[in-house]
């Protein structure tokens, strides 16, 4: 067995923030278990990434490289890492919980006869892995049984990238055997859905609306509050899915990431996909009828009540205060 392995992911040519967080999780687990911690970079040419990672307190950084890994495919990445982990026999394999990891890590784990414990927010003694259930309303503590490698992925923001210890790691290269015919899918170039004309990222005040609004006819109620405050109107995914507001106003993992001075969430329960897009806000206010809604976990101020009563009252109060 060869300890803990962290699979790193590149963002704009550098190691992405959530991958540093995965290293932090790996170092914490290493300290808990006394196992050595290694990292892997995957691609056609990953020398700069490996060099970045080698400045951390890791035993080894493995460059998993092959020309067929230049473009991401689930087949290529699963095959390459399967070969690495069959050779290295890890105790734990940690991934950042990104869209890409969701696409290939479960298949990779299954090849080694393992489930993936996905989207982990904490690793406690045992180890017990905490992940969210019921759209963030509950937490579940998971244990991994048996001796196969334990695969898990960590949620963005759950571990602190600043907490990674620096050091000097040995860099090595692993060359998997991949035949072109083994890559069954053909990915195209990335593209934007539509021209982004609304830049929520630079808005200082945002009023955001969720499922609680119930009907598209009720959207003007929230629009009026936004106008009174001088705020941009935003929404959670279901509102944009239903076409009640354009996609460019969506906040969350698939939409925009915002960090305004004020984020006022109206009728938004606060699923993790939404929270990752707005938890950098300086002040979060939540209006929701469910006192247990996860949005209250990140809110500074909360009003538990019927938004159809609270929002008009708030619009009036804001207007009066501005006069």
């Amino acid at each position, binding site marked *: 067995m060869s300890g803990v392995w962290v699979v790193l992911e590149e963002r704009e040519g550098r190691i992405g923030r959530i991958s540093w967080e995965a290293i932090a999780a790996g170092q914490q687990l290493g300290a808990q278990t006394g196992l050595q911690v290694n990292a892997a970079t995957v691609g056609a040419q990953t020398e700069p990434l490996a060099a970045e990672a080698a400045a951390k307190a890791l035993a080894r950084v493995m460059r998993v490289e092959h020309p067929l890994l230049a473009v991401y495919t*689930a*087949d290529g990445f*699963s095959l390459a890492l399967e070969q690495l982990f069959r050779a290295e026999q890890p105790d734990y394999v940690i991934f950042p919980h*990104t*869209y890409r990891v*969701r*696409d*290939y890590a*479960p*298949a990779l*784990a299954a*090849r080694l006869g*393992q*489930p*993936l*414990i*996905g989207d982990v927010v904490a690793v406690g003694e045992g180890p*017990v892995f905490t992940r*969210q259930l*019921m*759209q*963030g309303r*509950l*937490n*579940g*503590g*998971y*244990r*991994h*049984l048996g001796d196969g490698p334990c695969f898990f992925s960590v949620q963005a923001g759950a571990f602190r990238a600043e907490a990674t210890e620096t050091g000097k790691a040995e860099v090595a290269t692993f060359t998997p055997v991949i035949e072109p015919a083994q890559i*069954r*899918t*053909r990915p*195209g170039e*990335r*593209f934007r859905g539509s021209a*982004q004309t609304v830049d929520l990222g630079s808005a200082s005040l945002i009023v955001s609306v969720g499922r609680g609004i119930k009907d598209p006819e009720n959207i003007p109620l929230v629009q009026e509050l936004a106008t009174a405050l001088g705020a941009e109107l935003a929404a959670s*995914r279901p509102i944009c*899915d239903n076409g009640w507001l354009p996609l460019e106003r969506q906040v969350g993992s698939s*939409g*925009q*990431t915002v960090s305004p*001075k*004020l984020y006022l969430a109206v009728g938004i329960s606060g699923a993790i996909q939404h929270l990752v897009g707005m938890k950098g806000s300086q*002040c979060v206010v939540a209006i929701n009828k*469910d006192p*247990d809604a*996860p949005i*209250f*976990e*990140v*809110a*500074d*101020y909360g009003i538990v*009540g019927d938004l159809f009563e*609270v929002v*008009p*009252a*708030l619009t009036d*109060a804001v207007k009066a205060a501005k006069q």
Partner: protein
Amino acid sequence: MKIVVATKQVPERDALVRIDAAGKWIDESDLQYALNEPDAYALEEALQLKEKHGGEVVVVSAGPERVGSTIREALAKGADRAIRIDCDDLGAWDSLGVARLLAAAVKPENPDLILTGLQSDDLGYGQTGVVLAELLGLPHASLILHVEMTDAGFTVKRELEEGWFQTVELPTPAVLTIQSGGNKLRYATLMGIKRAKTKEVRCVTPAELGIEAAPIAVLERVTLPQKQKSTQILSGSAKEAAAALVEKLKFEVRVL
């Protein structure tokens, strides 16, 4: 074209969930259930493909008898028949185990396309479709919003992070996990509900499929999350709470 849609029944989104007495799962008494929302989009995509290209839509779902109600709903919307994997103890299976059950039930069907929602609203593992593809030896693509048939297979629109998308081409047969929002969901018609009553729902047991629950990832304890911030709740009538909030926005947050 034969399309299999793997679906799950989950507690309704608005349902009040309580932790059960043992602290190992939620209290299932008095709970209302519904079709997992991303699976509803997977079903919709399948029905639209069938309308365009002809063929058959088969729904497969694992769970206890109550799952029959969401299966009937799918049949009423237009699916042709269904397979229910009879499983009273779904909680005793991990993500790999459930995918093995589904794979064993789906394999003899030899479908051209398998669709499922990208994740469930209750456990949220988000991996059943991807593991199902792996177990069946099929290519897959995840987070798919649109599916088009081509001469060689499928061209799909895949969602990436931060508002980006990508087109992926796959050969037939393939597995796709469907993201919410790609289509408008249909309602069952009265005629559809009537017809659903006569459609075939075949029931199989894990033993008949030759699969045993051998969980590796085990959910041991369910707890309430700890708050990341201490939320100041502004109480009173709507008017009082609104006035209190305006005070905060003016003097503490300083945005008014």
